[in-house]
């Protein structure tokens, strides 16, 4: 962090009181956000939206740890919101930003998060239109929690889960498991954090390139693979389509060091959270075109087909091993617990 911000002091309870200190905190946040903040400090943002249909999403962000090797909770918040809009085929436009800050949090950390939000918003081409700050007592949050809402517009037909059909290819835009391994490694000091980085990235540019290039009808539905991992997405689609979804274990894109880490920890990469990976359900006739476009983009360079939606009207998720045997992937009740001391 720049030396000009390290002597800023820390968040105090009165920063959330609504009085003068609150105004100073808000000004600090707004100044750091810079040109991505277009609010006018009214009680509501007043925006122009193109005529037609909009997409809207909301999300809350709790990261442990909130600051990690190649990002922080600020970056995650913009990427998560933007990606949720992009995967339904909308062009992300505006985000709100709610911050819950722990008393004692260095203001330099607030600056760091806001800088990440600014830089990620610039990359994604979105603007922050309004926000809110609250301060809680020490121990009531882990440093900082964020909440966003996002609005996007449809300039093409929306992508919907209900359009997925038997025969559709299942494609991943990149490796799975890295975000979980990276954060866990920093949290526990496992030694993988420099080799396995978080995949956190805004994917609306990738989605826009894809949908513009391959044309309508090629991509039936897309999901951002986050909490619950790939397995949760595949279960969701199996239920929605009413058909089994099968993937091949050997085709899963998993970085070697992530294989090491998940093997050590006794977890499965298919259950691990990601923050920059898309799962696409694609018309089989368009499979190669989709792969070519994804691979031409920096966030899709390792895109690969992992399986398909089958004609089997039993909404299971099946994993095919190297010998061609299928096994059922059970849906987890809760989080998979890593094997730690």
């Amino acid at each position: 962090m720049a030396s000009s911000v390290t002597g800023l002091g820390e968040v105090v309870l009165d920063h959330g009181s609504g009085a003068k200190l609150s105004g100073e905190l808000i000004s600090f946040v707004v100044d750091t956000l810079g040109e991505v903040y277009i609010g006018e400090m009214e009680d509501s943002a007043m925006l122009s939206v193109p005529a037609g249909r909009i997409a809207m999403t909301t999300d809350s962000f709790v990261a442990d740890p909130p600051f990690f090797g190649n990002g922080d909770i600020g970056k995650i918040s913009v990427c998560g919101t933007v990606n949720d809009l992009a995967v339904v085929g909308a062009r992300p436009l505006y985000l709100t930003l709610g911050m819950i800050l722990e008393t004692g949090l260095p203001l330099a950390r607030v600056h760091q998060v806001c800088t990440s939000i600014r830089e990620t918003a610039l990359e994604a081409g979105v603007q922050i239109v309004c926000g809110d700050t609250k301060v809680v007592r020490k121990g009531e949050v882990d440093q900082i929690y964020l909440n966003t809402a996002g609005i996007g517009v449809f300039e093409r037909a929306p992508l919907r889960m209900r359009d997925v059909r038997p025969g559709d290819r299942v494609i991943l835009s990149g490796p799975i498991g890295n975000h979980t391994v990276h954060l866990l490694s920093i949290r526990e000091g496992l030694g993988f954090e420099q080799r396995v980085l978080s995949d956190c990235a805004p994917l609306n540019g990738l989605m826009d390139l894809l949908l513009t290039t391959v044309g309508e009808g090629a991509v039936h539905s897309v999901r951002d693979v986050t909490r619950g991992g790939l397995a949760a997405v595949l279960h969701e689609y199996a239920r929605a389509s009413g058909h089994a979804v099968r993937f091949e274990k050997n085709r899963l894109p998993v970085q070697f060091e992530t294989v090491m880490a998940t093997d050590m920890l006794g977890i499965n990469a298919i259950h691990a959270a990601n923050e920059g990976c898309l799962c696409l359900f694609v018309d089989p006739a368009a499979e190669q075109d989709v792969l070519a476009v994804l691979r031409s983009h920096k966030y899709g360079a390792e895109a690969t087909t992992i399986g398909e939606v089958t004609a089997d009207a039993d909404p299971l998720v099946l994993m095919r091993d190297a010998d061609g045997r299928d096994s059922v992937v059970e849906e987890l009740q809760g989080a998979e617990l890593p094997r730690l001391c």
Partner: protein
Amino acid sequence: MGKIAVLTNDLQGDVVYLTPERTAVMADAQPHYIAFLDEMRRRGHTVYHLQLINLPDDPNANRRADGTLPLQRDTEGAAILPAFLGDGDVIVEKNKDSGFYETKMHELLQEAGVETVVVTGLQTQICVQTTAADAFFRGYNVWVPSECVVSDKPEDRDRSLSWLAGYCATVASSKEILETLDTKGELPRMVVKTLP
């Protein structure tokens, strides 16, 4: 040819005597383990003891059932057990599982010209594994003496030794390690295998 260093993990009362089963497993391993450390010292190799110290403000530090924090700096339970200490040994504080995570370990080893590390201690399945993996990622040649790593459960130790041998370390008996040193003058670097 680079130097060799022995790394120990968590040879501290609060760790070693945490449970009766671990105390018993360690009691079995201790004579052989100490003998190995002495043999390595006799051959001129430095022993670095990684000392796990919990920081009071670390929300992820493992606490006792009563909520108190073990392994706090300058407490008896955090001290390296005297039976394992020898002349010339170096103690390096760590605050997380891997001995290289935000510690001076890599810097010290580089200054000493170390290229090979022999990783020992407990528990095999986390502190030993992560220290070994971290060392491997940093370019060290990693060896693990199979009787000088300890886990509460034998299946955890065995699984971990398989993992180490499969990904990042040469696993051998301490006898084999000493014989290799005496006959070859070095510990050959492992060829990395990729498990299916």
